[in-house]
């Protein structure tokens, strides 16, 4: 089965093709559509399990199995800047090793559950959007599995772009609503910034190593680490730029909260459990670059740690149940990067793994709640849902306890692993940055407190107290159908069980997860340094105490007859602070004022100069008038508004020059194209002298 790895991504692709190309057009019945989609993802799950079992049995978990499907880009021989003569031939090959096996398992498993859940959640859609939804969902599975299984950076990038596309399509699923379409576009464009860094990293890798294959790269670096140390820093940093975009870290996190415009199962699958963790996976996958570069490691840790706290503070003041979870996801992704930055790649992946279960469970629970409240997402008009939907309630609480880091739930083990590793990095003075890691450890603890607080705030506001919505809504409250509650129950069990795979505090022998990942993503240890058992247990006690105090505070503020009184008094005392946090620190507004407005202004200026001079060559007099008025206008603006308008004027000049290129004569375009071609030939001759 391990030789049929290509079958795993192919099955969902087939499902997507059938539903998207045939089912959608023909308007197949919902039973047929969901049958195809469930069969595709279910078979992919079975194939994945079989492949993992076969790989573990025949190759062994310590080694990798690479399945070459076909030669993709046979580019030929060339000299790399590393001085190697390399034959660059990019294969479309799939790789299964400990890292991809872990991802493969939970992507197919959680993916299948969410397919099942979607059948119930989307049942009120029309036939054709229903087919479109499942086609996208299957397409996403295909892209994600390609990403996970890709044996080189190029194949990983294909999957990476694929999941980005599906994310865009699914965020904008209700594209008839403007804000949904806008959220999709935002996600796509923000991700583009990150992807640009990623693709530059790939180019750089090719230039230095002449290969993009993970095995070959790891081998080359292992053979001569000192030689590649200088190149590792820029490559690692550029890769991390890609990860920052995909995994919604500072400063590119803004798309993820908006991505909640998509259907809730999509938020659970793509924007919580799988796609957003691709950045962490990629960093763990290319850890051989990162471990060579202390600067890159520190950057990863810093960005991760700051994001973890920053997003958590925003989460404290959100009232939309999905937004709370979204910021929580951003924050937890920050923890994962914090772990990777502290050298605990396996620890980060472990959090990815456990987070997939409890965050998917939380999102699906939220979806179930929203379903019951007829589409309402505002927690201020919920409350008391506990008695109406018991299954949703207890699964939500289990997942919340896991996220808050209460033993023995899964999040406790993974978060504690991260904090422990960061503490070890701080006390062992990893790469000489021990003081920074110490600060990050404190931030991590503060984030854990806030996590516990805002999650229990959500639980109290949603499930406890009295229902605060309208009578109609109250009448409509109901438990969700079985296709929705069964995945919730399975995921809730996973939220407990997943943690037992990596109980780091009982010594390395019990930490099965880290041992599994050791051959591919070994933890960076400070030599000769070890955190003593007594200190370790007191750290664990500390983090549990922090989580419990967060829960205690949330309960004091939002539970019981005095609920909401304290938060109201707090808001009255610090109105500015509360408003700033509730408005997400005005980051979106700042981005709109700078990057977005700048681009719009450029476009506007280009358009104006395009439109203004209509009869340019023919009507000379008019041209002249426009020209002089432009100049006088320019003069005026320069005198009055100074530097700001100077920039606008520069745009104006550029577009005046560019306008000449856009004069509408096809042959003229051909002429310009030829000029470019001539320049390229000249450049090639010049460079090839």
């Amino acid at each position, binding site marked *: 089965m391990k030789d049929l790895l290509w079958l795993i991504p192919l099955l969902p692709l087939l499902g997507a093709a059938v539903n998207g190309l045939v089912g959608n057009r023909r308007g197949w019945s919902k039973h047929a559509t969901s049958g195809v989609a469930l069969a595709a993802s279910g078979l992919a799950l079975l194939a994945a399990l079989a492949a993992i079992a076969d790989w573990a049995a025949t190759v062994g978990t310590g080694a990798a199995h690479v399945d070459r499907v076909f030669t993709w880009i046979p580019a030929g021989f060339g000299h790399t800047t590393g001085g190697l003569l390399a034959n660059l031939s990019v294969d479309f090959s799939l790789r299964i090793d400990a890292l991809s096996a872990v991802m493969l398992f939970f992507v197919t498993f959680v993916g299948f559950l969410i397919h099942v859940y979607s059948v119930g959640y989307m049942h009120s859609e029309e036939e054709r959007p229903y087919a479109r939804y499942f086609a996208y969902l299957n397409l996403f599975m295909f892209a994600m599995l390609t990403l996970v299984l890709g044996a080189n950076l190029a194949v990983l990038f294909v999957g990476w772009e694929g999941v980005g596309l599906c994310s865009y399509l699914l965020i904008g699923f209700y594209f008839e609503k403007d804000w949904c379409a806008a959220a999709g576009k935002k996600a796509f464009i923000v991700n583009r910034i990150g992807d640009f860094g990623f693709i530059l990293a790939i180019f750089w890798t090719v230039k230095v190593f002449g290969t993009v294959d993970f095995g070959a790269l790891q081998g080359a670096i292992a053979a001569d680490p000192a030689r590649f140390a200088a190149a590792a820093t820029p490559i690692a940093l550029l890769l991390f730029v890609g990860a920052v975009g995909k995994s919604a870290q500072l400063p590119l996190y803004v798309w993820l909260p908006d991505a909640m415009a998509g259907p809730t199962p999509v938020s659970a699958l793509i924007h919580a459990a799988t796609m957003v963790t691709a950045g962490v996976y990629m960093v763990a996958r290319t850890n051989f670059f990162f471990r060579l570069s202390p600067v890159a490691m520190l950057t990863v840790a810093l960005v991760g740690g700051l994001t973890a706290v920053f997003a958590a503070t925003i989460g404290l003041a959100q009232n939309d149940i999905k937004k709370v979870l979204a910021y929580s996801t951003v924050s937890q992704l920050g923890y994962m990067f914090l772990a990777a930055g502290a050298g605990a790649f396996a620890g980060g992946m472990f959090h990815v793994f456990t987070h997939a279960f409890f965050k998917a469970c939380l999102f699906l629970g939220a979806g179930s709640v929203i379903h019951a409240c007829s589409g309402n997402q505002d927690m201020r008009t919920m409350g008391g849902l506990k008695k109406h939907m018991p299954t949703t309630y207890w699964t939500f609480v289990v997942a919340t306890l896991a996220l808050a880091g209460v033993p023995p739930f899964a999040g406790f083990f993974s978060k504690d692993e991260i904090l422990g590793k960061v503490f070890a990095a701080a006390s062992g003075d990893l790469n000489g940055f021990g003081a920074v890691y110490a600060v990050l450890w404190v931030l991590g603890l503060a984030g854990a407190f806030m996590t516990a607080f805002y999650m229990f705030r959500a639980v109290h506001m949603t499930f406890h107290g009295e229902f605060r919505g309208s009578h109609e809504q109250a009448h409509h409250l109901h438990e969700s159908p079985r296709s929705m509650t069964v995945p919730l129950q399975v995921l809730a069990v996973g939220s407990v069980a997943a943690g037992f795979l990596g109980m780091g505090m009982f010594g390395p022998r019990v930490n099965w997860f880290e041992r599994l990942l050791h051959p591919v993503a070994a933890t960076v240890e400070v030599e000769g340094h070890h955190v003593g058992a007594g200190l370790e247990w007191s750290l664990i006690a500390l983090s549990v105490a922090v989580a419990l105090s967060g829960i205690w505070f949330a309960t004091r503020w939002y539970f019981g007859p005095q609920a909401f009184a304290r938060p109201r008094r707090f808001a009255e005392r610090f109105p500015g602070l509360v408003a700033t946090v509730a408005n997400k620190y005005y980051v979106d507004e700042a981005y709109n004022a700078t990057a977005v407005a700048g681009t719009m202004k450029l476009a506007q200026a280009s358009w104006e100069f395009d439109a203004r001079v209509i009869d340019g060559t023919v009507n000379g007099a008019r041209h002249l008038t426009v020209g002089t008025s432009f100049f006088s206008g320019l003069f005026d603006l320069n005198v009055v508004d100074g530097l700001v308008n100077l920039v606008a004027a520069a745009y104006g000049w550029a577009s005046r020059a560019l306008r000449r290129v856009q004069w509408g*004569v096809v042959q*003229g375009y051909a002429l310009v194209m030829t000029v470019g071609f001539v320049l390229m030939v000249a450049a090639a001759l010049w460079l*090839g002298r």
Partner: protein
Amino acid sequence: MSWFLVHFAQLVFYVMAACVIAGAVGVIAFKSPVHAALSLLASFLGVAGLFVLMEAEFLAAVQVLVYAGGVMVLFLFVIMLVKARAIPREPQYVNRLVPAAVGLGVVLALLLGAGMWASVTGAPADAAALQRVAGVQLGNTEAVGWSLYRDYLLPFEVVSIVLLVAMIGAIVLGRKEPGKEGRA
């Protein structure tokens, strides 16, 4: 007589080259599209002749069949289909671009020529190498076939899909607009 025999290949090359260039000049110079198309045909046939000279017989046959046959007929059909009145009358060139275009053409030719000048050294490889597949001597067509269906099967399939899509595209573009005269 013997001079002809010795220099037969040169002779053929220069005749064919002249045919190719004259044809190309004709395409640009002739006012009537029909004349231009026929001139293009001469150029195609000249290229086919050069292919034979370079021992690429299969390509020569494909050139004649696809270009001189298929593409040319397509051109002539379309010229007839769109009728003379659709053809622009005076002038036939985009006059204001001509100096720039010719100048650019000369620069391009010089640059490419400069690049090409030093790029080839030594005599051509043994022609028999072109027809050897895994050590077995074959005909040119058979050798191309082996290469095409063994080493380049995937690109071949991709190209065939491109062709299929182009065909469908041409049909979509060519059919009457639905609504005006019903669905065609």
